[in-house]
């Protein structure tokens, strides 16, 4: 039987990939992975061996990420100007067809919860059920959120929004 440590180490590359796509930058992504690993090690007794370790680790990462977002929301100065741009546009003009041809930037323009769902399913290939567990939401919500997220991404990538176009940079 594989040791707990080994199971965790095996997941590090995927945790890094997910964190990179989620945060968009290497440094905050690796910080998030580092924190996730530290928490996983301190809570190893909470892991049930019969269950897949990947959703468990992604759940820890999700919780840390959400905390971080909330913390950031209270101190908005931590966002870069460019990030703020994308966020503000996404927030104030959710119906606007923002042209963001670059996938990374398009992902950034998605609301956090949509970005997570599209990455967990589309990139990390978690099942809907696992994704629901990671995010703490019902499977039905995963499906509807996913569908909205993909539609939004499609619009962002192709620039075919229904409302007036607005170009960033």
């Amino acid at each position, binding site marked *: 039987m594989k*040791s707990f*440590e080994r199971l965790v180490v095996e997941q590090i590359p995927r945790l*890094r990939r997910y964190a990179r*796509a989620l945060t968009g930058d290497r440094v905050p992504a690796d910080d998030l992975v580092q924190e996730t690993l530290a928490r996983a090690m301190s809570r190893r007794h909470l892991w049930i061996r019969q269950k897949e370790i990947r959703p468990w680790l992604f759940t820890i990462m999700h919780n840390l990420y959400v905390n971080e977002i909330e913390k950031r929301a209270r101190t908005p100065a931590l966002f870069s100007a460019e990030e703020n741009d994308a966020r503000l546009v996404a927030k104030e003009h959710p119906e606007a067809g923002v042209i963001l041809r670059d996938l990374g930037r398009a992902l950034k323009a998605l609301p956090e919860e949509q970005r997570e769902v599209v990455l967990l399913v*589309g990139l990390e290939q978690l099942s*809907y059920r696992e994704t629901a567990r990671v995010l703490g939401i019902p499977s039905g919500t995963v499906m509807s959120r*996913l569908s909205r997220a*993909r539609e939004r991404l499609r619009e962002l990538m192709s620039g075919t929004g229904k409302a007036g176009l607005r170009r960033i940079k």
Partner: protein
Amino acid sequence: MSKQSKTISEEELQSYVDGQLDGPSHDRVAAALTSDPELARRADELRRLADALHATYDSVLDEPMPTEMLRTVINRDQSPLLRLAAVVAWMTIGGVIGGLIVNSIAPQPASELRAERPLPREAAYAHAVYVPEIRHPVEVGADEREHLNAWLSKRLANPVVAPDIREAGYQLVGGRLLPDAGRPAAQFMYEDAQGTRITLYVRGHEESARDTALRHSTDGNISVVYWLDGSLAYALAGSIQRDQLENIAGDMYRALNP
């Protein structure tokens, strides 16, 4: 949206592309896709998004793993020196595999061999660190075999001899002195005609323990066969088949106990 969405919903199509459907619901979407170009186009679009995500982010999987991450997971309770050895071993081999080896050999079930730190783990560390060495695989070469044996025997305060296993096809490369929990240990390296290296790790054994049968510990691509013999503990490590390694260990035992 489009006409076929009357029969196949957006969520069904999405579930199909994400591999979440099976049985009749899977077959129903698959059938609809063959007869409905518009539906097929939408399915392709969904797939292209997944492809784009992979194309953008999969390179992260191949990036070298930061040592800090490995240190967080492995050997948290160990001395900095050993953690360093584990990390060096990981970097030497490269990729995840090395990390997995040192890592998963780490936790051992309790055994009478657990005098200081588990012997197979120490042996695997030392193996992983020195086997890839091209220029300095050993401190003292086989051409100074007598000196090597005398020197290591003196440092380990025990008669340490590099067993002769030429009959098994392995030539002695040489040996080195290593620290093991602050005490001297020895490593002999052997090489066969193809350049495959195996290492024998030797350290003193505290208790005047009974001799044990060969034990085996394996992971990924480093196998370790280990045994106690009087006041010394031996561990043979190599990335070869377990039965081959056991045969060589048997040869070694016989060479040491003529």
